């Protein structure tokens, strides 16, 4: 129905409609990554790196859950392991395999640190993420990521 009522155009309704349509067209499409992809951004943004993205599907074709979650001590929680590069180089967590012997080594920064800068730690596509996750609040103060500074490769 046209926004013409009682002989005059309700410009307000028209403008609102245009804005709504523009928002729909401009709004970014939701991420379509695989179920089980984990973004880990505990320290990466603050350090000027892209956040690390872990693919469960890729790893579960090659290893059973037990290898990482029992032998290597990974917790069942996104961002709950407080992984740092120091620990990985030390042979803990990812570094148990990503050492150049079982899988490629830590020199390939961009293979893990491939996330869109500023993406918070979360479990992509998880039920909790869909239903009950609290709103994302960016860090404030010195730990806040600098959006202008492009992360180094």
């Amino acid at each position: 129905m046209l926004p013409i009522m009682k002989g005059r155009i309700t410009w307000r309704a028209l403008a609102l409609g245009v804005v709504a349509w523009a928002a729909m067209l401009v709004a970014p499409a939701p991420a379509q990554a695989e179920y089980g992809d984990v973004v880990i951004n505990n320290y990466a943004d603050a350090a000027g790196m892209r956040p690390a993205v872990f693919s469960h599907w890729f790893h579960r074709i090659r290893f059973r859950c037990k290898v990482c979650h029992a032998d290597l001590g990974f917790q069942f929680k996104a961002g709950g392991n407080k992984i740092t590069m120091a620990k990985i180089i030390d042979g803990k967590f990812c570094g148990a395999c990503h050492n150049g012997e079982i899988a490629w080594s830590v020199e390939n920064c961009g293979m893990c640190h491939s996330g869109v800068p500023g993406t918070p730690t979360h479990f992509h596509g998880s039920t909790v993420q869909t239903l009950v996750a609290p709103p994302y609040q960016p860090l404030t103060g010195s730990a806040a990521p600098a959006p202008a500074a492009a992360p180094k490769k």
Partner: protein
Amino acid sequence: MNLHKKTLFMVGAFSLFLVGSACSAQPQVAPRPDGSVPVKDLSYAPEYKPVDEMAQSDVQVIHIAQVDDINSFNRNLKKPKGIHLPPAEDGLRDPQNEATHILAAPKPAFEGLPPTEYGNRVDWVKTLDDKKIRPRWEREDPDAEPFVMDLDIVRPVKASVPDVVFPHRQHTEWLFCSNCHPAIFIPQKGANQINMSAILLGQKCGVCHGKVSFPITTKSCRKCHSKPKPDDWKPPLSEATLKNPWK
């Protein structure tokens, strides 16, 4: 007259209050007899450490993303571009990162694997049973065999939905006992209170189901709720009915 006196008194009191507060606001530096300057106590201020300005090594704040799927039913919003998109197009990884284009794409990897309608759209348990994939049980030993326990646990459900059968076999193919016991499930009959709300909130079964293993959707109910109710099953009486003294 009485009122006038009262007003005068109030004005006087107010002006005294103003003057007093103005005087006390100014710092009163008491001169010392020897002429030295008193040292201010700075214990309230945090110690300045230049190292802290560089980087916070132990940042405790964990980012959590926004709820993004609330309006997925809105047909005016953008449609998903498709399933199993390559890493550069999935919206999570940065296409400007060169290594993103080297990463493996899911679509070729999932070809030939038994499909489902949820999660990765791959039936991982069937994939493993059919030996379509050979994931390692030990990190360095490709031939190690898992410690499989074939024990089904039947959990009667209060509601009228079918009872839950928990198969240990499928779970021990992937996981080790210590992954679930005793932190998530106490290995004792009747010791675990499980309900769907807890699972949807990421507790109990929801620690994995809803994150990596098959999610809770309207199409996956029957994967767990698989044992039909016994013929003589009746809905349980409510607490109020049971405690009713006039029953």
